[in-house]
């Protein structure tokens, strides 16, 4: 393992992310914040939604922002760099094993997802207040949950980015990202699906469910949520699974 090379590749990604900071900020936070404003302020303020919905919504918004950021930060550059211009080649030719190039992308995605999670908390809180009742009673569990969520999103980005082509990006959003968000228990707790028993079981294959429920368990434990142990196990499972699939796909793309 060559730390200098690894560090230089991370520095390159940080440099590019800094250069595109405003664009990244808008594409990451605009949609969740508009959602927070409409459902948390407009609907609650006008009495169509109960006031408690504000607190229920916040963990889901954090989960979506993190998942979307991690997936986007890893998948989109990979899709572009593996196209016929093969921009990634200069890193594949760097003196480091090919798998480390993929792991560097994952670390870069994890850091961006964590940053997104930490930025969206105060932003959403500012839009929602007053009346949000969040408390970090178990900081260690909270830290572990957001780390596992960040890893799942970055590994998911690796797997998606090395599997689909540029012409299928629209399809990726339509067929993967959108259903993931709507069936991710971000806007409602998992227990709310009990009137749709089949759907309630089916959504358990969606890692975002565990992200939303885990954040709910650590930030707003007064609402119903999945047991925290189950959330840890499921997130760990998805992290490992998506990392293995992603690495395999990456090596397939990297070497002909």
């Amino acid at each position, binding site marked *: 393992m060559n730390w200098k090379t690894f560090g230089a590749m991370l520095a390159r990604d940080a*440099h*590019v992310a800094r250069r595109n900071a405003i664009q990244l900020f808008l594409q990451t936070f605009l949609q969740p914040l508009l959602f927070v404003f409409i459902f948390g302020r407009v609907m609650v303020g006008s009495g169509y939604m109960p006031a408690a919905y504000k607190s229920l919504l916040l963990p889901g918004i954090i989960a979506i922002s993190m998942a979307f950021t991690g997936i986007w930060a890893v998948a989109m550059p990979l899709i572009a760099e593996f196209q016929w*211009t093969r*921009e990634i080649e200069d890193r594949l030719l760097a003196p480091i094993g090919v798998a480390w190039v993929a792991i560097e992308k994952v670390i870069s995605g994890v850091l961006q997802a964590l940053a997104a999670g930490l930025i969206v908390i105060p932003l959403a809180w500012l839009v929602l207040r007053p009346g949000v009742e969040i408390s970090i009673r178990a900081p260690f569990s909270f830290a572990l949950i957001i780390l596992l969520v960040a890893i799942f999103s970055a590994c998911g980005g690796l797997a998606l980015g090395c599997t689909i082509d540029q012409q299928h990006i629209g399809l990726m959003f339509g067929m993967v990202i959108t259903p993931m968000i709507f069936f991710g228990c971000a806007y409602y707790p998992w227990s709310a699906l009990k009137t749709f028993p089949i759907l309630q079981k089916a959504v358990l294959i969606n890692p975002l469910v565990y992200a939303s429920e885990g954040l709910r368990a650590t930030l707003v434990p007064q609402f119903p949520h999945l047991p925290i142990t189950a959330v840890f196990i499921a997130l760990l499972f998805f992290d490992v699974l998506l990392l293995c699939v992603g690495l395999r796909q990456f090596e397939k793309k990297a070497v002909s």
Partner: protein
Amino acid sequence: MAVAVRTDNLRKVYSSSPPAGGFVARPDTKGGNQSKAKIPALDGLSLEVLPGEIFGLLGPNGAGKSTTIGILTTRVRPTSGQAWIGGYDVWKEQTQVKRLIGVVPQRPNLDFSLTAREILVFHAAYFGIGSKQRSERADALLEKFQLMERATHMVRGFSGGMMQRLSIARAMMHDPQVLFLDEPSTGLDPQTRILLWEIIREYHQAGKTLVLTTHNMDEADALCQRLAIVDHGRVIALGTPKELKASIPGGFLLRLRFGNQTPDLLARLQSLAGVREVRAADNTGADVYADRGGSLIPEIASLAASAGAELSDVHISEPSLENLFLHHTGRSLRD
């Protein structure tokens, strides 16, 4: 200390996969191997590049030149056979190999998210070069490749020639012992090509090994100390340009066209003084390899007249790699 390059019986068979892959299930990944089209690219290619030489791989498109470079630069997995850069096995000791090599690809693969200068500086950083040194080297190479005034521009808007120059500068940033150039002068204007040739020679004088591919005979002739002529994934001839040209029977090639051609005529051509080899070329022509050129024409013309075959076209070429390729394969390099 210059570094050698060696391959032993390299084979590469590509399994064709549809260019649009991934999201839509690939039909041919499920139904076993029968439906997979196998495309052989290399068929037992062995060669040895001596330390510190400029070595050329010459051949038509699809001969296997780029696949050879791909294997030697760790980017293509050989189906069988082995390759070494210095003492390192290319496939098994990739990291050590990557430290020794610089690669200029056929198509520029510059990092579009960075400026020209950043591309050079980050490349050096990947190779663990300190920040002061990489900054100095980047400036020196930008100057040398006449890219200084565009140094802070994003490369997206660069012309093909500028991208090519920047690709070469990038490959030189970490001062590699072996430089691979895949079709380096494709798409370059004559001025830039001369600059490129100068730079290649200069790099060679610094004691480095250079391996380049080309289908341009002039380039191979002008630059390379030794050449391998590659066709259908095999080396069909190997030597210095001079040796190779001397290996063509006679050296001169006269491509003749007749109104009508008879076997008798071919036999009589063979008996002319200085003619080494006569080959029928379709039904109306003959390729004559001889050790003289224009002075044979009057004899050929009178021979043809006496045989009742009218000579309709003559093309004389002096000893060249083009003739060599034609002699070995029966095909022109440009086919």
